[in-house]
C-alpha cells in the first residue's frame, strides 16, 4: 500500500514539475500536468479502496530535523475513505481539466495553474493521511495557501481579489483555532504524534476537553463553512476556476469534516456530554436551512452551488450530531448509524457537487458568463452537459435513484430514532431538526428546479446562449464519470454500507452492517425492518417501470392521436425570451414567504414617455438580499480591527530611524531584564 502512496506522491510531483519543461507549448503543458494527476488520483482511488478493506491501519513515517515534527502517515479506514473521496473527485477534475484549462490559455500561466492544481490535491490527500499534529498543520496550511492562489487565478478582477483576501483571512483565523486545539492535546501528551493525542499520559480534564471541542468546532467549522462562519465560501469558491471550485466545494471542505470526526471520536475517545452533539446538530440544522435559502436568491450559478455546499455540510453535521447525541446516551448502534449517514452524505456531496461545479464550468466555458439570467435553452445545444447537470441536480435534491436520496434518507432515519433517548428535550429537538431538514429538501428542490429550468429549458436569453456549443470531449468524460458514480452510489448501498461500517466501527465499537442491510443487501433498513426500510434498486426498477409503462401507454394509444408539430401557443403572439420566467421571478414567492430572513430591498424606477404618464418607456428593477451575517457580525468586527489598526499606525511612521530606535530600545530593555 505504501508503494501506491509513492506512485501518488510521484504523480503529483511530476504534475507540478513536468509542465515547466514545455515553455510556450500550451497543449503540451496541459497534457503533462493533467496526465500525472490522472495517474496519481487513480492510485489514490485504489489506495482508498485497499485502505478501506485492509484489517490493520498501515503506518509509515520519515523523521525530520525539526523538533516535534515527523512526516508520519497512517492509513486507517477513516483516512482511506477520505483519500477515496478526494481522489475520485480529483480524477474527474483532472480529466475535465484537459479541456477546461484551454479556457485559461493566455489569461493565466498554465504551468502555474497545473502545479497549483496538483499541489492542492496532494496537500488535501496528506491532510487526511497525516498522523502527526505538526505535519497536519503544515499540510493544512499548504492546502489553504494553494487554494488561495487558485482562487486568485483571475486576479485582474477586483472582486476576485476581494474574494481571495476574504478567504485568506478567514482560513487563517480558522487555522489559529486549530493550532490552539492541538496545543491543548500537546500539553497533555507532550508530543504532536496523533497516538499521544489519542492516549495522553494523563487524561485531559473535562474543562480542557470542552475548550478543545469548541476550538475545533470553530477552527474546522470555518473551513467547512458552517453558519455563521460561512460568509467567505460564496465569494471564494465561485471565484476559482471551475474544476478547482469543484474540488474546493466538493472535497476541501470535507477535510474539515474528517478532522472533526478525528478529533471528536478518535482523540476525545467518543466520550462527551449530550450538549456537544446538540450544538453540532443545531449548527447543522441552521447551516442546512440558511444555506439553501441564500442559494435560492443567487442568480450566479456558481455562487448558488457554493451556498448549497453550506447546506450540505449542514446535512452532514446533522448526521454526525445525531450520532454524537446517541453516543452520549450509549446507543452505540444508533450512533454508528448517524455517523454512517453523515459519512455517506460526505462522499455523495463530494460527487454531485463536483459534478455540478464541472457542469457550471462547462456553461461558463461555452458562454463566458455565470449569470443565469443570460442562459436558457441550453439542453438542446449542450445535451451532454445538460444530462450530467440534470443527474447532479436530481442527486443534490435527494430524489431516487441517485445517491443523495439514500444518504439523506439515512440521516432522516437516524433523527427519527431519537424517540429512544430518555431526555424529553432531545426527544423534541431531534424531530425538529428532521423537520428543518425536510424544509431544506423542499427548498433545494425549488432551487434546482430554478437552476436547471432557467439554464437549460425554454428559449436562449442572450446571444451567448444562442451560440453556445457543446464542450470538448475530456470535459464531458469528467462530468460523465461523476454522474455515473452518483448513480452507482445511489443504487449500490449494499456495497457502500459495509465499507462505511468499517470506517465507523472503530469509533462506536459496534458493527451495524447486519442491521442496516436487509434482504441480502438488496434493501436498507434502520435497525429493524418494521421501523423503516427501503430498497434503492427496487425503487429504481419501479421508477424505470413507471416510465416504461407511461411510454408504453403512449405507444399503445398514441396512434389514435393526430400529431401536429407547431410552435408553442403564445396567445397569438410570437414567443420571445422576454416572456420567460426570469430566475428572480421564479423565486419571488419564496422571497415573499421568508422576507423576514432575507430582509430584501427592492428598488423600482420607471421612466415614462413625455407624452403620457400611462406609458412606461423603461423600467428598472433592483433587488438585494440583506447580507445579515456580514452586516451584523463581520462588519462590526472589521470596523473594530480597522480602528485599532488606525491607532497603531501612529507608531508605524515610516521613518527608518524610528524603527531602528524601537529595535534598539527593545534590545537594551531585554538585556537589562536578563541581568
Amino acid at each position, binding site marked *: 500500500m505504501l508503494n501506491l502512496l509513492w506512485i501518488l506522491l510521484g504523480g503529483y510531483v511530476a504534475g507540478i514539475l513536468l509542465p515547466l519543461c514545455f515553455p510556450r507549448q500550451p497543449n503540451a503543458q496541459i497534457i503533462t500536468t493533467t496526465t500525472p494527476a490522472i495517474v496519481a488520483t487513480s492510485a489514490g482511488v485504489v489506495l482508498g479502496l485497499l485502505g478501506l478493506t485492509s484489517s490493520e491501519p498501515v503506518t509509515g513515517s520519515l523523521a525530520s530535523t525539526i523538533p516535534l515534527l515527523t512526516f508520519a502517515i497512517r492509513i486507517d479506514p477513516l483516512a482511506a475513505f477520505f483519500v477515496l473521496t478526494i481522489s475520485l473527485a480529483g480524477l474527474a477534475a483532472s480529466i475535465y481539466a484537459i479541456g477546461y484549462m484551454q479556457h485559461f490559455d493566455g489569461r493565466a500561466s498554465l504551468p502555474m495553474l497545473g502545479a497549483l492544481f496538483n499541489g492542492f490535491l496532494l496537500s488535501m490527500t496528506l491532510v487526511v493521511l497525516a498522523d502527526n499534529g505538526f505535519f497536519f498543520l503544515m499540510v493544512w496550511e499548504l492546502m489553504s495557501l494553494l487554494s488561495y492562489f487558485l482562487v486568485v487565478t483571475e486576479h485582474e478582477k477586483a472582486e476576485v481579489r476581494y474574494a481571495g483576501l476574504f478567504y485568506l483571512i478567514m482560513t487563517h483565523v480558522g487555522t489559529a483555532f486549530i493550532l490552539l486545539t492541538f496545543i491543548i492535546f500537546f500539553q497533555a501528551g507532550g508530543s504532536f504524534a496523533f497516538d499521544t493525542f489519542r492516549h495522553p499520559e494523563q487524561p485531559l480534564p473535562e474543562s480542557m476537553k470542552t475548550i478543545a471541542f469548541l476550538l475545533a468546532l470553530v477552527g474546522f467549522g470555518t473551513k467547512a463553512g458552517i453558519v455563521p462562519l460561512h460568509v467567505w465560501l460564496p465569494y471564494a469558491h465561485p471565484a476559482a476556476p471551475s474544476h478547482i471550485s469543484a474540488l474546493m466545494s466538493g472535497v476541501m471542505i470535507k477535510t474539515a469534516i474528517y478532522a472533526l470526526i478525528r478529533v471528536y471520536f478518535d482523540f476525545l475517545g467518543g466520550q462527551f456530554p449530550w450538549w456537544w452533539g446538540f450544538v453540532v446538530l443545531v449548527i447543522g440544522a441552521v447551516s442546512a436551512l440558511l444555506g439553501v435559502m441564500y442559494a435560492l436568491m443567487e442568480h450566479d450559478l456558481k455562487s448558488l452551488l457554493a451556498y448549497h455546499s453550506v447546506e450540505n455540510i449542514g446535512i452532514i453535521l446533522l448526521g454526525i450530531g445525531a450520532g454524537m447525541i446517541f453516543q452520549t446516551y450509549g446507543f452505540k448502534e444508533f450512533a454508528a448509524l448517524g455517523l454512517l449517514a453523515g459519512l455517506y452524505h460526505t462522499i455523495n456531496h463530494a460527487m454531485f457537487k463536483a459534478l455540478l461545479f464541472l457542469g457550471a464550468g462547462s456553461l461558463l466555458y461555452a458562454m463566458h458568463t455565470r449569470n443565469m439570467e443570460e442562459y436558457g435553452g441550453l439542453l438542446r445545444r449542450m445535451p451532454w452537459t445538460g444530462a450530467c447537470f440534470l443527474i447532479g441536480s436530481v442527486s443534490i435534491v435527494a430524489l431516487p435513484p441517485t445517491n443523495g436520496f439514500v444518504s439523506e434518507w439515512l440521516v432522516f432515519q437516524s433523527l427519527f430514532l431519537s424517540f429512544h433517548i430518555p431526555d424529553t428535550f432531545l426527544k423534541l429537538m431531534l424531530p425538529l431538526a428532521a423537520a428543518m431538514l425536510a424544509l431544506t429538501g423542499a427548498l433545494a428542490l425549488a432551487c434546482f428546479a430554478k437552476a436547471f429550468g432557467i439554464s437549460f429549458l425554454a428559449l436562449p436569453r442572450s446571444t451567448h446562449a444562442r451560440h453556445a456549443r457543446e464542450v470538448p470531449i475530456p470535459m464531458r468524460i469528467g462530468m460523465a464519470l461523476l454522474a455515473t458514480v452518483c448513480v452507482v452510489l445511489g443504487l449500490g448501498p449494499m456495497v457502500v454500507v459495509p465499507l462505511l461500517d468499517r470506517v465507523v466501527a472503530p469509533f462506536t465499537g459496534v458493527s451495524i452492517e447486519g442491521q442496516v442491510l436487509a434482504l441480502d443487501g438488496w434493501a436498507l433498513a434502520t435497525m429493524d425492518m418494521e421501523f423503516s426500510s427501503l430498497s434503492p434498486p427496487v425503487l429504481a426498477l419501479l421508477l424505470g417501470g413507471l416510465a416504461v409503462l407511461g411510454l408504453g401507454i403512449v405507444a399503445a394509444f398514441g396512434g389514435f392521436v393526430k400529431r401536429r408539430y407547431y410552435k408553442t401557443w403564445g396567445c397569438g403572439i410570437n414567443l420571445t425570451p422576454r416572456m420567460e420566467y426570469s430566475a428572480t421571478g421564479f423565486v419571488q414567492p419564496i422571497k415573499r414567504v421568508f422576507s423576514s430572513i432575507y430582509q430584501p430591498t427592492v428598488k423600482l424606477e420607471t421612466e415614462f414617455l413625455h407624452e403620457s404618464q400611462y406609458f412606461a418607456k423603461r423600467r428598472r428593477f433592483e433587488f438585494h438580499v440583506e447580507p445579515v451575517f456580514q452586516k451584523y457580525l463581520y462588519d462590526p468586527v472589521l470596523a473594530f480591527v480597522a480602528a485599532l489598526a488606525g491607532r497603531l499606525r501612529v507608531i508605524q*511612521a515610516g521613518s527608518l*530611524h524610528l524603527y531602528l530606535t524601537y529595535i*534598539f530600545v527593545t*534590545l537594551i530593555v531585554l538585556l*537589562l531584564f536578563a*541581568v
Partner: protein
Amino acid sequence: MPLMTPSIGSQLVDLGSALLLLTCFAIVAQRRLSACVDLFALQSVFLALTATLVAFLTGIHHIYIAAALTIVIKAIVIPRILKKVIERLNVSRELVMHINVPASLLICGVLVMIAFLITQPIISFGHLLTRDSLAIALAIVLIGFFTMIARQKAVTQMIAFLVMENGLFLGAIAATYGMPLVVELGVFFDVLVAALIAGIYTNRLQDAFDSVDTAHLSELKE
C-alpha cells in the same frame, strides 16, 4: 609561550579591545565621512591585531585566517567601496544630526556602562583569557547600533553597521575563541555583500531623492 605569561597576554588582548572601543568613540565624534571610513579601517586593523594576538596565545590557527580576511576585506576592500560611494555622491559631511556630538558621546558612555553591567555576571563565570573583551564587544555593538539611529546619511549608517559587525566578531573571539572557520567565512562574505548592496542602495537613494538622508524614506509611506 614563554615569551608572555597568560596575565600579560590577557592584558594585551584587553588593550586591543580598548583601542577598538576608542575608535568607536572617534567614529561617533567624527563629522567628515571620509575620516569615518578611515577610522573604520583603523578599527578593523586593531580587530585583526587582537585576533592575531588571541590566535598566537591560544595556538588556534584558524583565527589567523580570520584575521587575514579582516585585513583584506574590512581594512582594504570595504573602505574602498565606501570611498567610491562618497566620491560619487559628493557628500563629505554629516551636516544635520538627530543627536549632536557631545550628547552622542555621553550616551555612548552610558551604553558602555550598560554593556559592562550586563556582562558582569557572565564574565565572572568565564575562564578564557579574552573574557573581559566580551563587555567591550557588546559596548561596540550597542554604539554601532546607536550610531545608526543618530546619524542621517546612509553612508554613516553603513559604517555604523560595519562597526556593529566588528563588535560581533570581537564578541565571538572573546566568548569562544572565534566561531568555526566555515561560519566566519560565511560572515565575511555576508558583510561584503551587505556593503555592496548598501552601496547600490545609497546610489539609488541619491537618484530618487537627491540626497542620501534616510529620513526621506518616510515619504514612501502612503
